């Protein structure tokens, strides 16, 4: 096995009864890489992370994290990783600070410099003022921030972040991402994160795997995946959008065509030349907008639908999530 690989996954699958939550994925992540698993709700992102961190037994296939097989040497794997769960797992009855103290003990953070490290992490996620309050009294975003502080506290070699910034304000998001990128650069930390924010994957991931219904449908550098589309995204608003979409689908220079709420979206190759041709063939267009293509169009290309279309909030994990339960 390649020593430079932080993670290698071979035909990994997890079935829940008849449901193939993860359906035979093969993937590898380089050491020090920042890698995104991008997919809609229920795609199998969390299930994948759970198998990589030893929390779920794969139904089939194998996975290797930091040089160790997740099933055969789970403890060795756990000694190399940090995990930020989608649903915060911080302890309600402890204060934010106590949560980190506990974690430091549990994760062998050297006593020397422990306190300073915890101070740094608390201030990174902006919880200095509230560090002594019980987590019970935290908002959802604060819990998530504490969870992030805890995940990176012990300088893991491989860091898993399951939707790390969902529910955080843009400023905090940016701030935390800057830190994680810097950490990856300076310490060689491999970072694997999941997200259903396209922008987040485009902006922060060096490489991304797009996952849908348990299958990886594309892998590559975000800009390469977008460039492969070979065009710009054109958005057309039209009353008879279904008809318009059908016409566009037949045009040789159009790809990734989708239609929703009277808006047709398509990737048009050489738009400077082809857009006029296209418009001449269509009628009833109300507005038109041209912008650079994004990963959303990549997703449409492979699945025929936009990443957010059937992703109503409230997947399995969201339903389980009710912080005011205790």
């Amino acid at each position, binding site marked *: 096995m390649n020593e430079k690989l932080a993670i290698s996954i071979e035909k990994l699958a997890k079935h829940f009864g008849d449901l193939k939550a993860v359906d035979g994925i093969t993937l590898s992540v380089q050491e020090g890489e920042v890698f995104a698993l991008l997919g809609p709700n229920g795609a199998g992102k969390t299930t994948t992370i*759970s198998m990589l*961190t*030893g*929390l*779920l*037994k794969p139904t089939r296939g194998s996975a290797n994290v930091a040089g160790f097989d997740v099933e055969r040497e789970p*403890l060795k794997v*756990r*000694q*190399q*990783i940090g*995990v930020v*769960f989608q*649903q*915060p*797992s*911080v*302890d*309600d*009855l*402890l204060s934010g600070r*106590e949560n980190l103290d*506990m*974690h430091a*003990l*549990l*994760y*062998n*953070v*050297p006593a020397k*410099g422990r306190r*300073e*490290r915890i101070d*740094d992490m608390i*201030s*990174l996620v902006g919880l200095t003022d509230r560090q002594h309050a019980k987590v019970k009294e935290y908002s959802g975003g604060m819990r998530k921030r504490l969870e992030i502080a*805890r995940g990176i506290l*012990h*300088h893991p*070699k491989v860091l898993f972040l399951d939707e790390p910034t969902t529910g955080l304000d843009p400023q905090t998001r940016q701030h935390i991402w800057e*830190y994680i990128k*810097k*950490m990856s650069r*300076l*310490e*060689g930390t491999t970072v694997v994160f999941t997200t259903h924010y396209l922008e987040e994957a485009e902006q922060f991931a060096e490489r991304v795997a797009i996952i849908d219904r348990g299958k990886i449908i594309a892998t590559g550098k975000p800009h390469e995946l977008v460039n492969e589309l070979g065009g710009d995204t054109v958005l057309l608003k039209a009353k008879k959008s279904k008809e318009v979409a059908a016409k566009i689908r037949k045009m040789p220079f159009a790809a990734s065509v989708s239609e929703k709420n009277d808006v047709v979206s398509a990737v048009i190759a050489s738009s400077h030349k082809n857009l006029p041709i296209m418009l001449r063939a269509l009628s009833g267009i109300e507005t038109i907008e041209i912008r650079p293509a994004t990963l959303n169009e990549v997703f449409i290309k492979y699945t025929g639908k936009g990443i957010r279309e059937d992703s109503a909030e409230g997947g399995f994990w969201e339903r*389980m*999530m009710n912080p005011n*339960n*205790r």
Partner: protein
Amino acid sequence: MMNGMGAGARTRITGKVIFMGYFDGVYAIWVREIIVFMREKERVISAVVTPLMWIFAVGGGLGASVQIQGMSYQMFMFPGIASMAILFGSIFYGMYIIWDRKLDFLKEVLVAPVPRSAVFLGKMLGGMSDALMQVTVLLLIGVAFGFVAGLPALLLAIAFSVIIAACMVSLGLIIGANMKSPEGFNLVMSFVMWPMFMLSGALFPVENLPSYIDIIVKINPLTYGVDLMRLALLGTSKFGMLYDIGVLVFVTIVFAYIGSKSFDRMQI
């Protein structure tokens, strides 16, 4: 804010670190359990109220017309009820894992870089501490009402409680680790907690019992706990101290082994 970074900052995993890490892990989990217990006042209060109901309602009522072995019924049943407090506290404690699992607090511990046996041990010490706090409160109340005669009896009862708690908490953790949802709670009450309590000699002497009861009483580890408690508080024992302790220690080792394996297999 960015200090503490750089390649040297990561802990190198060496044999010594792993060894120390094991006990740091046990300690961290133990401390967490104690803090959580102390902060959940409802748990502390209910843990003491139920046994008191038994002593004063059942013991007082029945005791008005019943004497056992030449002493008041309340006097006789007190060591049994103290054992019950340990049993109930321990099984409830073990089943708390289900809530931790449901509310996700368990995940952090399950991905921690310590062997699951360390997690088990930390939880076991935590549960023993909880159970000891509960039974100590009960014993102190017993002192006030004359069920506990003096300091030596009190200290001996607390010492024996440690052994009983180790056994019962291990059992509770086995149940907690293998149960996926709180729905099984009532089953555990009906098929584990109540029978273990009823058929332990807590409420009646284990003499001249019908044979079908006698068998169950003899294989019930709590029987030997009750016997120890009676030795500490009343000075009488049916099986003898060494035999009681031997059985409890042996059963604890078996339970702890099974529990530790259950933790090993535990998924989210």
